[in-house]
């Protein structure tokens, strides 16, 4: 597997596409700013959202128990999954026990995290993703590159080529209207035939035992309303205590995600319709472990709006696939080391710690501070290269000894002047696209002794 830096370097090779990716996401960030600045109470809403989540996480077992009780009373079956494997097995069993053949799935980052599609495919079961972006990447056999805009790394031409190959649309026809219509017809066939519909969950309400699914395409509703079985999958952090708290989150979610005042469809599910089965799978998959890490607990407040992706100057220029995980971007970089520290040790370093992510986060997660803290943990656990460790130890020693520091500085500048090729070469990554600073004859320390200490 390539590291973030290696994969990012490959993405950037196509400069035009990188610029387009950056500008498109910056456009979304600008829309978010407009929507946020339109509400004088914006910062108050963020405080409330953060505090509600904080309270819920502090009393999570109580709220989960209440949710299960109320959901059961509504006729919903609640399943508990300790990890991704168990989540997948539960769904597989529901499919087998009910003799299901046609499955549609609306957008759910949890099922991506659990690799449900691959698991079911492995058992000979096909699922059709019904979110347009998700369907496009599914046809291409790629993972989503963004949690809200899964195909944002693709241009119209790419979509046209994909649809031509799989849906037999006219070759070279890039008209978005035409392509969307083709997808609509294609997906309609699957909706009508579907027997089981899988959806995600945006908010689960302990008080009512119901849950809310937000989509802009209405595809979750189409699936859930036609199939005889509706399976909703959620990480346990999706819980909120009361229905009255929904208003805070629904106002924040799409303004942060896309700059829209409200999601097009916020569908409230409380009980199965007569003759239908409704199931909820509540997943841990490392969340309890993260809850137990005081420095990273706040990451469980995330409502998956992706505002941190859109504002992140690194994400915009490296693309989602460079993060090699289901949830990319700044939030993914603090969630994924919890799932597998070794495999994701590079992610907390894929940031300049500029802090913009923390500022746009609607639930006020201290994202950039957690990135800094993960770096400390990853180094302490020994997941950095020996070369880096050695150079850092050398630096620490040099900077602890002022005489040595002054001597090394003087020598360094001297050699940079008389033998610039010693630093201006291929071994110096700085020099690849940047000139080195011009070394002055005198450091400030040397100047000071001459001019102020007479």
């Amino acid at each position: 597997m390539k590291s973030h830096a290696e994969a990012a370097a490959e993405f950037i090779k196509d400069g035009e596409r990188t610029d387009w990716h950056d500008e498109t996401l910056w456009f979304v960030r600008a829309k978010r700013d407009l929507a946020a600045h339109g509400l004088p109470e914006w910062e108050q809403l963020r405080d409330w959202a953060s505090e509600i989540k904080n309270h819920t996480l502090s009393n999570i077992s109580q709220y989960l128990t209440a949710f299960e009780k109320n959901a059961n009373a509504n006729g919903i079956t609640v399943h508990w999954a300790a990890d991704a494997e168990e989540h997948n097995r539960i769904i597989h069993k529901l499919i087998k026990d009910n003799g299901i053949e046609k499955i549609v799935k609306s957008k759910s980052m949890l099922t991506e995290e659990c690799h449900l599609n691959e698991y079911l495919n492995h058992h000979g079961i096909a699922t059709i993703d019904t979110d347009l972006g998700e369907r496009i990447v599914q046809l291409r056999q790629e993972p989503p590159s963004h949690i809200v805009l899964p195909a944002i790394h693709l241009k119209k031409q790419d979509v046209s080529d994909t649809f031509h190959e799989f849906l037999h649309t006219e070759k070279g026809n890039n008209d978005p209207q035409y392509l969307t219509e083709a997808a609509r017809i294609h997906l309609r066939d699957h909706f009508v035939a579907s027997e089981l519909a899988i959806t995600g969950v945006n908010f689960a309400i302990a008080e009512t035992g119901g849950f809310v699914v937000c989509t802009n395409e209405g595809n979750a509703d189409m699936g859930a309303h036609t199939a005889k079985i509706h399976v909703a999958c959620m990480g346990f952090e999706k819980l909120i205590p009361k229905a009255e708290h929904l208003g805070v989150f629904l106002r924040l979610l799409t303004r942060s995600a896309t700059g829209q005042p409200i999601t097009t469809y916020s569908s409230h599910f409380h009980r199965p319709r007569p003759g239908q089965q409704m199931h909820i799978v509540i997943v841990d998959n490392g969340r309890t472990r993260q809850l137990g890490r005081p420095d990273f607990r706040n990451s469980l407040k995330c409502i998956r709006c992706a505002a941190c992706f859109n504002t992140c100057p690194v994400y915009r220029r490296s693309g989602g696939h460079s993060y090699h995980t289901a949830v990319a971007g700044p939030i993914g970089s603090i969630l994924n080391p919890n799932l597998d520290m070794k495999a994701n040790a590079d992610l907390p370093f894929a940031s300049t710690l500029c802090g913009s992510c923390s500022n746009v986060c609607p639930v006020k997660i201290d994202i950039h501070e957690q990135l800094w803290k993960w770096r400390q943990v990853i180094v302490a656990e020994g997941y950095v290269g020996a070369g880096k460790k050695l150079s850092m130890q050398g630096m620490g020693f040099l900077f602890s000894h002022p005489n040595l520091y002054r001597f090394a500085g003087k020598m360094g500048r001297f050699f940079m002047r008389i033998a610039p090729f010693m630093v201006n070469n291929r071994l110096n990554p700085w020099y690849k696209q940047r000139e080195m600073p011009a070394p002055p004859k005198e450091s400030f320390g040397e100047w000071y002794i001459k001019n102020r200490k007479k």
Partner: protein
Amino acid sequence: MKVGLFIPCYVDQFYPKAAIATLELLEKLGVEVGYPSGQTCCGQPMANSGFSGLTGGCDALFVKNFSSYDYVVCPSGSCVLHLKEHLHAEDEAQAVALRSKIYELTEFLTDVLKVEQLKASFPHRVGLHQSCHGQRGLKISQMTELVAPGFSKPLQLLGMVDGVNMVQLDRMDECCGFGGTFCVAEEAVSAKMGQDRVADHVKNGAEYITSADLSCLMHLEGILKRQGSAVKVLHIAEILNHQ
């Protein structure tokens, strides 16, 4: 008022002119400035790379050099932020006391000295690069993400300089991509970010790019020079001290 001047390693070695301008500016404003000779680095390169366990030597030197001063002033927001957040000592109370006395130059001028006028002139078109650590970390200016009234300590000071013509950027507070060791560990992204940042300034007609943080400027200067651009970088102290 006794002020200790902290000149971080890379400023000391590569940008003495910015350090001299900082010293002269403070002296002009009637401040008694001392420069302890045993200073090196704030420790940020190690800490931001995950090696905060290796900053003990830097911390001890810093405490030894600066504990006797009323204030510590430094022309680099990034280093100041690191010290404010992560300076430790054997006597932790001493470190905590010192943390609250450390100021980035522009915030020291506006908040402590409460400077309202400067004798300075710089008749050029200037783009201000807001360094992330100064802006978002130290809050020396408002951030575009937050819904709150705007302010900018660097702009407030630049407004006192005769003839300066500030350019409007398309992206007011986008990161330049330097990021300490990020600039080499993620060379491709870092360089691309720097190129994009420079392009915004150039497109909007800047002759100079200034900042309260030289580390960003070192990165942008490296890119400008590689491009053969005539646009120059100057630390804000050099503009505020220019006559």
